[in-house]
């Protein structure tokens, strides 16, 4: 069946370093969403990408949708302690969440 995998599973960075998480689907996606979940919290929507090759930016966050619409990435420039949490991609066709990347930022 359809699977959505994310790498890395965990990432520890020093505050100010960059961070990237990658999302890979076994099947072509119609669109992809990214969510952030703080420890003990619930997923919060960040962005949705629809078009092949689409790139969107939100302040220090850059999201990209692959040309083949089977992969996506989230890049954070100059991480801050407020970026701590688990980042999930969620792919459609049938809504499937990725395995998540847990980000830890050390001050």
């Amino acid at each position, binding site marked *: 069946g359809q699977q959505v995998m994310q790498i890395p599973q965990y990432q520890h960075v020093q505050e100010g370093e960059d961070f990237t998480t990658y999302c890979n689907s076994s099947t072509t996606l119609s*669109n992809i969403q990214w969510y952030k979940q703080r420890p003990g919290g619930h*997923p919060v929507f960040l962005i949705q990408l629809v078009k092949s090759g689409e790139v969107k930016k939100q302040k220090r966050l850059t999201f990209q949708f692959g040309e083949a619409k089977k992969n996506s990435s989230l890049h954070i420039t100059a991480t801050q302690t407020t970026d701590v949490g688990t980042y*999930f991609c969620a792919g459609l*066709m049938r809504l499937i*969440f990725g395995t998540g990347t847990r980000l830890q930022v050390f001050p």
Partner: protein
Amino acid sequence: EAGVAQSPRYKIIEKRQSVAFWCNPISGHATLYWYQQILGQGPKLLIQFQNNGVVDDSQLPKDRFSAERLKGVDSTLKIQPAKLEDSAVYLCASSHYTLGDSITDTQYFGPGTRLTVL
């Protein structure tokens, strides 16, 4: 606007008991989702409603799980009987609309119900 409401926030039961969770979506949201999130994993979609109709329940263990959204607003998710592996956080989310498989509007998640099965 008020967010997605869920109750209870926590529930502890013994295996083979029954449990029910309640969700009140954001007013006006046509689509409602129930997810199961096991510790350390991403949310897994159990069922998706569009108004009061089921869009996708392919991952719902129908031998023990049931869900309904009778009036197209509130929803309940029931587990009967519960197993140890059902211990998880059950998240409810809602969105304005879903257009088939192609476009889903932003999902807003509730705080979840943490279920512990002993």
